């Protein structure tokens, strides 16, 4: 996955316009109208301490429609109860203020019981957004004192989460420097067994944060030139080999240790260069700041890595340590999700719970491959094991990828 992150040169004053593309989602393409129903002009009745608003999804001659029984309410708690009568193409309703999602319901379908959400609203204008409806945006007006901060909670929590994630990423890269240093020392000693062990210990650091740092290039590098691409220099592999630049980084060392079974002068030079490239990467990354959607897209990117490279055994072609990388990708993704979770669960508790459940399932599946007798702590992901087990693991990951891919738009609109 390409994130919206732009490539960053080493010399640039890093950190400023990193995230110019992080668009606050523009909602709906169609124009906004006020609710046209008869009850639209009176304020919603109050019951059980909240204004009660019914949202009806129905099919009509000009497409499925979304209607409010009251387009106004007094400031305070408002409960929206959504009934999908027969609108087969509508599955989602959101309450939006200035492009921020305040509350929503998904998985709506005709025949299911009505569902409701309650939000506390201050005076002002809001939109009810029904993607796919003939009129996608309905105006909802609240009279009374304006809110102090309608989504302050979620937005603040998400912002805090991004700062914590930045610390996690920096800490991981610091750990990587230490581990790569130990790998270089072991390689320099000429001890193949020790070097293999250190290789397996160093790999997970990069795999945990890869999606956050994979865009870095050395200064003066032309687009597309792998000579200055730090991700290439650190993590290229046989299937991504650029013959003009040649073998570098982790997998050049892996190839020598496992396939060649020997440490050569070239292996030692590769280990030294890996150490130097890792230091450059870590120093660049200290300037990084993140938006909530970067965490979401980064987590999705790590799972794409699992699906595309690890499960297929392509990443660790010689050592078969793919499950070690898998575990690290998964941990990195789960961390990013964990930092979003406090804010996300205010915006969309159902999605948060679904993603959490799916993470648990993948973690549990992977856990069955734990084998402490192996370098790296997981069973070797050999072609034989892949042929029997890859499909089930792949399905478990896909079941996580799909709901996870919904998160970015939720948190991006909550800023």
């Amino acid at each position, binding site marked *: 996955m390409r994130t919206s992150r732009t490539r960053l040169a080493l010399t640039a004053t890093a950190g400023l316009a990193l995230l110019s*593309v992080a*668009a606050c*989602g*523009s*909602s*709906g*393409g169609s124009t906004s109208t006020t609710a046209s129903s008869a009850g639209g002009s009176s304020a919603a009745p109050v019951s059980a301490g909240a204004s009660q608003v019914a949202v009806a999804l129905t*099919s009509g001659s000009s497409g499925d429609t979304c209607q409010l029984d009251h387009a106004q309410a007094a400031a305070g708690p408002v409960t929206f109860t959504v009934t999908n*009568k*027969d609108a*087969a*193409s509508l*599955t989602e309703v959101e309450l939006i203020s200035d492009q921020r999602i305040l509350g929503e319901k998904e*998985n709506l*379908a*005709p*025949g*299911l019981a009505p569902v409701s959400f309650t939000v506390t609203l201050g005076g002002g204008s809001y939109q009810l957004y029904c*993607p*796919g409806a003939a009129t*996608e945006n309905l105006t909802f007006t609240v009279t009374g004192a304006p809110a102090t901060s309608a989504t302050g909670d979620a937005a603040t929590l998400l912002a805090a989460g991004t700062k914590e994630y930045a610390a996690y990423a920096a800490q991981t890269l610091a750990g990587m420097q230490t581990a790569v240093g130990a790998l270089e020392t072991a390689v320099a000693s000429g001890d193949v067994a020790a070097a293999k062990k250190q290789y397996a210990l160093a790999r997970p650091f990069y795999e945990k944060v890869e999606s956050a740092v994979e865009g870095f290039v050395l200064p003066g590098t032309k687009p597309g030139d792998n000579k200055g691409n730090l991700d290439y220099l650190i993590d290229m592999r046989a299937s991504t080999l650029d013959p003009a630049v040649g073998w570098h980084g982790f997998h050049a060392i892996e190839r020598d240790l496992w396939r060649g079974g020997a440490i050569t002068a070239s292996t030692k030079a590769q280990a030294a260069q890996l150490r130097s490239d890792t230091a450059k990467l870590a120093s660049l990354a200290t300037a990084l700041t993140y938006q909530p*959607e970067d965490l*979401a*897209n980064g987590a999705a990117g790590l799972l794409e890595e699992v699906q595309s490279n690890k499960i297929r055994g392509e990443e660790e072609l010689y050592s078969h340590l793919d499950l070690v990388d898998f575990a690290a990708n998964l941990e990195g993704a789960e961390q990013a999700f964990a930092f979003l979770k406090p804010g996300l669960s205010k915006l969309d508790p159902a999605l948060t719970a*679904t993603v959490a*459940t*799916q993470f648990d*399932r993948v973690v549990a599946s992977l856990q069955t491959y734990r084998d402490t007798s192996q370098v790296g702590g997981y069973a070797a992901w050999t072609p034989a094991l892949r042929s029997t087990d890859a499909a089930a693991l792949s*399905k478990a990951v*896909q*079941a*996580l990828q*799909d*709901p996870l*891919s*919904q998160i*970015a*738009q939720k948190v*991006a*609109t909550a800023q």
Partner: protein
Amino acid sequence: MTDTDRPTPGVGRRRFFQGAAGGAALGALAAGGTARAVSAQGATATSAEDDRELVDLTGQYRFFDQAHPPGVATLPQRHALYMTFDMVDGSTRAALQALLARWTAAISVLMAGRPIGQVRPSRDEAVGQDTGEAVGLAPATLTVTVGLGPGLFDQRFGLATHKPELLAALPQLPSDKLTPETTGGDLSLQVCSDDPQVSYHAVRNLARMARDTVATRWTVNGFGRASAGPGQQTPRNLLGFKDGTRNLRQPVELDQHVWLRDAGWMTGGTYQVVRKIQMTVETWDADRVSDQEQVIGRTKVEGAPLTGRQEFDAPDFAATGAGGQPVIDPQSHVALASPENNGGVTILRRGYNYTDGIDQYGQLDAGLLFIAYMNDPDSFVRLQRKLGASDALNEYISHVGSGIFAIPPTPASGHYIGEQLFT
């Protein structure tokens, strides 16, 4: 004939006639001068026979408020995609309920030829709700038939009391060579249309919206229909023989043999048996055609029973030849499968030819995706017990995949498939 069976023609539907010159070209293979072909030859004829060669991609079927589920009595479309699913471990009754409701809504939209949501979301950070590959394509007479497997009614979802009365795993049958990878499933989708891309889009998006609840189990991609509905020319299976000459066609026959009556919430529905039947087509091709005809019990080109001259002549199983031997071998496929020899048992076949490429032995991997509908699965069991035990064709075919599913009736608008299970 209801809306379920014949498509609503699109605006500006074009009729393609064979024309004066084209009439003869109906196909040396197909026509062979049968009464049906002759009646269709006139350049101005607009009888049902014309439709058999007509592919009208603008045709569409209504989903809601029909007497029976789509894709059963529906005139067989040209292509089929069949996929089964398992409920993933730990998925809940509520998740199954939401899945059936969302599948129902999405199927109704897909059958109308519309995307199931935004292809290009209005938010930059959003993934598409619809994957987009059917944008600009016509409905192509798409039907999606949802099946509920016996496993759904085990202890997992508390649905045991609602189990359709005759739904149970098929018993082991003679000659079964089933592989677990192509057998069973908690849910199934039979997706048929006249445009394979439309079918693929449907199954892909239905699988996608359900991925946290169900996992794919097996699939077969059927590329050509191997059974006919009313007015359709009898198509050929990959053995090169017409398949389904004596298939059920009339509504009254379906009422008798296919649709469920007085079956509670399943009334109006049916049972589906699916078998993936591998054919060793290269070995078959090396057999002399006269022997192939003995194996099947019919002539290859015309499709006539060996006791008759034309395709729709009734076979005479009592007729004997010069040496006193039956003309139609009692172990031929036709003799063993015929209702006359099975106490009137008969089923609606709705199969498709498939290929899986080349197998591990370097042979063409192909066969018949056998799909049949019946109001009592024991009808299939009785037929296959006999066929599996002694069919001369068994030398050339293997049943490698299998499934049985209850096909619930179509919901009314505003409701969903299987809604009665959750009330």
